[in-house]
């Protein structure tokens, strides 16, 4: 799990949005969301100490 990856794609999304390239921005944003979801799954699998 490369933790810097969603930060990098997020920065690309910010840059594209700032430069007025909305389509590229939204693609980078979507990629960020997918990586974010995958990384959440990786880091959120430990059992909780609470009976939910």
């Amino acid at each position, binding site marked *: 799990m*490369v933790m810097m990856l969603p930060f990098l794609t997020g920065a690309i*999304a*910010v840059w594209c949005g700032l430069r007025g390239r*909305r*389509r590229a921005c939204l693609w980078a944003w979507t990629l960020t969301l997918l990586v974010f979801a995958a990384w959440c799954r990786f*880091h959120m699998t430990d059992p909780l100490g609470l009976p939910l």
Partner: protein
Amino acid sequence: MQTLARSAGSGSVLINSVALAGICAILIVAFVWQFVFGELPCPLCLLQRVAFIMAGVGLLLNVRFGPSPLHYSAVMLAALGGMAASGRQVLLHAAPGDPGYGSPLLGLHFYTWAFIAFVGLLGYCAAMLAVDRKWGDNAIPRPASLFGGLVMWLFLLVTLANVVMVVLECGFGACPDNPVSYLWWQALAGAPG
């Protein structure tokens, strides 16, 4: 007609600029706290920062292109993801006797503040979608005000600073669950372990 289209939602653009400034403030406070108190962000903390950046991108698009339901949906999806990550961390440390992760700020830990902020972002989007119901989608960039431009560039700088920070902390791999040092910073400085 073109003037009318450009002025459409100008008040909303200002509000979105202020909201984006708020996201910048959150990321800057977390950044300052990290270095002043020497508390390294855990993986879940970093994921919450990613969610704030994603939410900020939606707000930035509102500033750059004018308000659009598409941009608000990006903010809402990011807020939902951030709520999942921060809510998970709240539950991890909710057990009696657990001191929590990091130092509290004004009585609450950062992940609890983050959860509140993500809920606030959802409420913000719900309200702004009602306010901006008259404006449709627009893919043509519009000139930003001085304040809007400054906030967008500040957001880019804060995001890039986070990229550098996370590389110094974790390198190009996964971060440990309880980080105690900057892996790459130590490697670059030639210090042991």
